[in-house]
């Protein structure tokens, strides 16, 4: 119930999308996330994408912590 799973948007069909969850293709609603496009990563919760995952933000975080000594 708290769970949300990262998935890649494969194909957008109106407000729904085919998403790739670890190799399995499922359908999800993208009505709650604006401005997503094919190839983007999103978090899926009970069949709805709830947030876009930003690659840039992830990389930035890793850059900061990679340098820790």
């Amino acid at each position: 119930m708290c769970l949300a799973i990262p998935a890649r948007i494969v194909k957008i069909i109106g407000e729904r999308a085919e998403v790739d969850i670890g190799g399995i293709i499922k359908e999800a609603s993208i009505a709650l996330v604006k401005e997503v496009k094919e190839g983007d990563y999103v978090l899926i919760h009970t069949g709805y994408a709830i947030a876009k995952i930003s690659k840039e933000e992830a990389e930035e975080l890793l850059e900061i912590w990679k340098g820790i000594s």
Partner: protein
Amino acid sequence: MEGDFLRFFRNKEIVEKIVKKIEEKAKHLEIIKIMHVCGTHEWTIAHFGIRSLLPDNIKVVAGPGCPVCVTPANEIDAIANLSLEKDVIVTTFGDVFRVPGSKTSLIEAKAMGGDVRIVYSISESIEIAKKTNRKVVHFSIGFETTAPTTALEILRNPPENFSAFVTHKLIPPAMEFLLKQGCKIDGFICPGHVSTIIGARPYRSLAEAYRKPMVIAGFEPLDVIIGIFNIITQIEEGTYYVYNEYSRAVKEEGNIEALRLLNEAFEYSDSWWRGIGLIERSGLKLKSKYEKYDALKKFNMELAKEDYMPEGCKCGEVLKGEIMPEECPLFKKVCTPTHPIGPCMVSIEGACAIAYKHSIKVF
């Protein structure tokens, strides 16, 4: 992308380096209790053995972050009763199916002839409604993560034989309730997925008012370790701000579209949290203009005005982070996932079920 990142977010070397730093800082500190408020965080912490990496004086406890576990018996009773009515179909998320009410669970109601069906999302429930003349009631439980999906569908005028029993609950009021009660909590790991919706702002006023460091964290081991490190650093330095470690998914302002839908469909209500009690303005109910979709009104549902916990079950204390599941006398002896006594052993995100699963050694 996820593959590359996963390697990083599970990178043992970086985790070890940060753990070393936590150890150094912890030497100067008393016993520190960090609470997280999300079942998925509990899973990450248990699964990757994060507690065993931490110094003895740094404790990480689970709070009321499992929506199924905090669903009170009066809500289960009301929906189980409703499912026994002849022309009603109740749909529910799988996790809540087996949670005991004061008399029956939904699975028992089904065995008694109730038409209870498990769905993965509220839209499936609406699809069922479209194909029947019977009345379909969706049990809409869950936190801010799930509530927008209910709002979205209600605002889209589903068929009139559809309604929702809305019991959505809100995390920040529950955090504040525990702080007000004086629970010993030195910092919070804020729930990542809830935060994708509400953003960082709601925590800022809490951090400020109660002088508690808070970190919005993701769900990989490195995310949680960074969160703990930041909280310890803040405690050491005497600061109390909100650090958004999960910025790859959580924006400061949250999900604006989801928040707009919540605002449109719902208003605040006082809500019961199992084992914890009634918390003011900690729940959502449908606005009266959507009452034709409100199962509470449509069926005149009566909710008992008290909480009920199975005898001997210590879920209340587990959910407030006062004890670890292993400290409940029934844990593993009487209460197991195949024979759960309390809600925390039922849900796969319940602290007791997670502790049970990770206590079984596989040789």
